């Protein structure tokens, strides 16, 4: 019984730490990379559409971008998009998210350019490993080398660059 109790505690903690990285996101723009033409496969589209949080997925063939519109008042972690793209057999080349400004004001979202955001909504790019191309990650590791948390590659915090 005690053992089961312990497991439950771990589970609750695991869920709690996961939900911390969730943000109220309204839109995600994903550029995928891989060995083959990412737009030539229906796999990414399917994986994204299968997410319960997703309202619609549109593709822009000129920029090779998937635009994901999320249900209203949805909270979701950036990691969910990465998992979906990787499940489809591709990688994220860039991930730009639009969310409520209040939902990224916590220690899980580290703004690298120290910009202050006045508006209610914020658009930002996730810069962590696996969310940018390998080449960009190498560049970023150099330019952000003073940022210990960036180099630590911790999966439960996100380094972001504000775009608005």
């Amino acid at each position, binding site marked *: 019984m005690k053992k089961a109790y312990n497991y439950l505690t771990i589970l609750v903690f695991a869920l709690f730490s996961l939900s911390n990285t969730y943000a109220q996101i309204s839109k995600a723009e994903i550029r995928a990379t891989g060995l*083959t*033409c990412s*737009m*030539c*496969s*229906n*796999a990414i*589209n399917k994986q994204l559409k299968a997410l319960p949080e997703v309202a619609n997925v549109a*593709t822009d*063939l000129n920029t090779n971008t998937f635009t994901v519109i999320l249900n209203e008042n949805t909270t979701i972690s950036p990691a969910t998009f990465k998992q979906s793209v990787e499940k489809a057999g591709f990688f994220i080349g860039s991930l730009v998210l639009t969310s409520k400004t209040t939902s990224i004001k916590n220690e899980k979202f580290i703004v690298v350019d120290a910009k202050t955001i006045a508006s209610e909504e914020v658009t930002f790019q996730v810069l962590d490993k696996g969310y940018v191309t390998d080449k960009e990650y190498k560049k970023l590791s150099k330019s952000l080398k003073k940022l210990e948390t960036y180099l630590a590659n911790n999966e439960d915090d996100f380094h972001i660059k504000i775009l608005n």
Partner: protein
Amino acid sequence: MPTFTLKNANNEEISSTSFKNKYVLIDFWASWCAPCRKGNKELVKLHKEIEVSKIEIVGISVDTDIEKWKKAIEKDSIKFTQVNDPNGFDAKTAILFGVEELPSQFLFDTKGILIAINPTKTEINNLLKK
């Protein structure tokens, strides 16, 4: 073979039922799909080599932008049957055939029975020799 009626670049309706007593090679593609454009070159070559009375090559483009599709036909010098079904992977025929990636090819025999998916050029040539 699933039946469909789609329009060619001259706005004429082409029905799948018109390819009777012939092998039919259906090729799903799009102008923005680089591997498809490479594949077009192969199909153009194949089309020159085969006996058109024995096999019909049908390209189904899922391009939403009709102009880009027409330009691609011209650029790739496609002379075999070409029709358009806009809407990418949501195109009706793409769903009907179960297309999950581009390009995708389906080969049907003279009775309209599916005999190969993404056949090689050698496979097609061997078949026509029979």
